[in-house]
């Protein structure tokens, strides 16, 4: 049957909505190969339609299969792009190596461009009135208190606070920190809020 391989790709995206899988280079290559084969068969049959008019119908069937393959591959890419955007918002502009390697080189390039465009936009915010931009990845939840107690989950190192104090974030250490200054670290899974 036509365009079956490409459905495996689509199911891959559908299966794991909250994580991103390794880019499936090999399958994409195979699908594009299938498309070239269908296209070649169509070229040949299209030239033969003068002798056998009913071949034209066959050409149309293959054409539909070509369109279907195209649509599914683009949907695969597009849905990965949506996930890659989420990576930018959640991990930040620098991806951990194990996440980075799940993306193809082209996808990583797209990630960098997306990240750059976003940075440019965020820097432009409030520029007219002397701001140096606003980081929209912060202030994700309504504030409840100015300070919160946190537990450090990994050995992170030094964190310099706005008032100049330096805190040493070591695994299993507890801290009482300004909420605004540890939100990002909590999102990235480095700190955990203690309730």
């Amino acid at each position, binding site marked *: 049957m036509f365009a079956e391989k490409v459905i495996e790709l689509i199911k891959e995206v559908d299966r794991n909505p909250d994580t991103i899988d390794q880019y499936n280079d090999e399958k994409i290559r195979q699908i594009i190969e299938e498309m070239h084969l269908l296209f070649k068969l169509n070229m040949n049959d299209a030239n033969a339609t003068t002798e*056998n008019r009913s071949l034209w119908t066959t050409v149309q069937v293959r054409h539909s299969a070509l369109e279907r393959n195209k649509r599914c591959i683009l949907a695969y890419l597009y849905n990965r792009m949506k996930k890659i955007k989420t990576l930018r918002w959640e991990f930040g502009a620098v991806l951990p190596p194990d996440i980075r390697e799940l993306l193809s080189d082209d996808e990583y390039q797209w990630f960098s461009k997306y990240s750059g465009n976003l940075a440019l936009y965020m820097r432009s915010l409030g520029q007219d009135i002397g701001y140096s931009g606003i980081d929209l990845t912060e202030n994700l939840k309504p504030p409840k208190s100015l300070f919160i107690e946190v537990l450090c989950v990994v050995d992170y190192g030094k964190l310099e606070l706005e008032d100049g104090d330096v805190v040493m974030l070591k695994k299993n250490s507890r801290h009482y920190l300004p909420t605004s200054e540890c939100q990002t670290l909590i999102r990235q899974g480095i700190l955990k809020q203690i309730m």
Partner: protein
Amino acid sequence: MVINCQSLIQNLKINNRIFPKQKQMSTENSGYLSITDILVTTEKVPCKFLHDLPKMGFLDPSAADVDLKAGCSVEIPLWLAESLYSRRPPLVSVELPKIYKESYREILNADACAVDLHKLGQHFYELGCYVAKHDIKSEVAATLNNTYRQRFRMLLAASMSSDSINTMQPLSASERIQAADASNTERSFLTWLQRGDTPLTTANMVANHRKRKRAEMEML
């Protein structure tokens, strides 16, 4: 303190301006990139070929011929059926899958809640919307509508129940998503009510990748 933001006033005035009517597409988005629509259109529907199809014999697994002959009936994916049907003249006639046929319509119209759509029609509504036009008596459309309206109380029940496995069981794929969304709403309300404060948490994808990594490590 006097702030000079002249444009502020203009902006307040904008609120009173009549905005020009925009031209908008009146239909739902085409869903070209929609994973759900792609999966729905992968479902097979019975079709009768109205023309010979040279070299397409493989579409019919029961036939050994190289060519597909006009008049034979084959189950093909919906995307192909839709495409062949839309040609002028149509290359196929599409028949209704059994869940949309009269015998099932009667059961559904009598008591839609008794039907296990998970088993009988994962994409009952979505597929139904595509095939409704092939129903000469146009009763499929009414059945879809009626079924959904009757079964809405199952969604209500599933969203309220703590025993999610049993109540979710007979639901179609899209009904499951709606019931799951509704029970998420209920859960986040209860969490809000019971807890003094909602803690800041690790981002979703970050947490899930951590989890997956841990699972992979444990498997080694």
